[in-house]
């Protein structure tokens, strides 16, 4: 059983369980699933700097920071107890493409050539980590939500704006992965 749980979980098991987060938060205390709001709460609690956008009672949203802390802990517990022993399996076309950029280590969920402290001190690693992170924070707040708040919670509650946001997330990602990322990975 433990061996089975250590394997990567198939979409038809993990997907519905992830979807249950929506009713779980609604029923635990009428809370709306949405993780990017935490980035705003961190700004409001630590560096409000008199910006009106960060002037609100973030303590009322503290539950969400606890939820985010839980995600971090959940990641740690999984790495500790249920780590997949085998390398990550990827599509052969992706593996061939990445090999062309010198990326061939599949021992971790993220490529160590890019997303390690050594990687941070390469031009392409720094771009992906720092600029990529910045765009995630700026874009999600501008869009009013991320994959959880728009794509899962928003679509679950049949919100039109969330459908527009989700389509734009996908368009942005497809453009980046297919047309811009190859140029960055060549650096």
């Amino acid at each position, binding site marked *: 059983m433990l061996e089975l749980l250590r394997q990567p*979980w198939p*979409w038809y098991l*993990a997907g519905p369980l*992830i*979807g*249950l*987060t929506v009713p779980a938060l*609604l*029923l635990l*205390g*009428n809370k709306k699933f949405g*993780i990017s709001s935490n980035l705003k709460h961190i*700004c409001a609690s630590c*560096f409000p*700097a008199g*910006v009106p*956008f960060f002037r609100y009672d973030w303590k009322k949203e503290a539950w969400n920071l*606890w*939820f985010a*802390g839980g*995600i*971090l802990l*959940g*990641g740690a517990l*999984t*790495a500790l107890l*249920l780590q997949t022993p085998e390398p990550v399996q990827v599509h052969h*076309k*992706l593996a061939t493409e990445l090999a062309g950029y010198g990326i061939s280590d599949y021992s971790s*969920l993220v*490529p160590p050539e*890019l*997303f390690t402290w050594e990687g941070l001190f390469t031009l392409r690693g720094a771009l*992906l*980590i720092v*600029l*990529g*992170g910045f*765009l995630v924070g*700026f*874009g999600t*707040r*501008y*869009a*009013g939500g991320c*994959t*959880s708040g728009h*794509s899962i919670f928003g679509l*679950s*509650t049949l919100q*039109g*704006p969330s459908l*527009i946001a989700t389509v734009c997330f996908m*368009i*942005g*990602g*497809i*453009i*980046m992965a297919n047309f811009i*990322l190859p140029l960055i990975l060549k650096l």
Partner: protein
Amino acid sequence: MKNLKYLLAGIAFGLLLVKSEVVSWFRIQEMFRFQSFHMYGVIGSAVLTGMLAVWLIRKMNIKDLEGRPVSFRKKEFSKGQVYGGLLFGLGWGMTGACPGPLFALVGTGATVIAVMLASAVAGTWVYGRVRDRLPH
């Protein structure tokens, strides 16, 4: 400790993100290149499950743990969903991580992702600072 239940829900969610490999940069690259059904399966079945659950909560008027009715707020259309959505998409294609996985990955021991997370906080802060000058 009224927030403990949210911590526990977060732990379960973090576990799911990691075991489904949604946090993997490789899976996100496959998704944006249409090389694997996995991510579409995860997000699609999550949305269907969420829809069904929300429909049931509304239909049966189920109350939350504190006995309050569950409320929903309508989201308003804004150009931000387009411009912000595209910018986030570009970022997602680079980092392979949306905000949930950022927290989960730091937990798995990929400590450099804390820099990515700090950068995302900085991006959010800059948005807050310049939002009056952006089209909405």
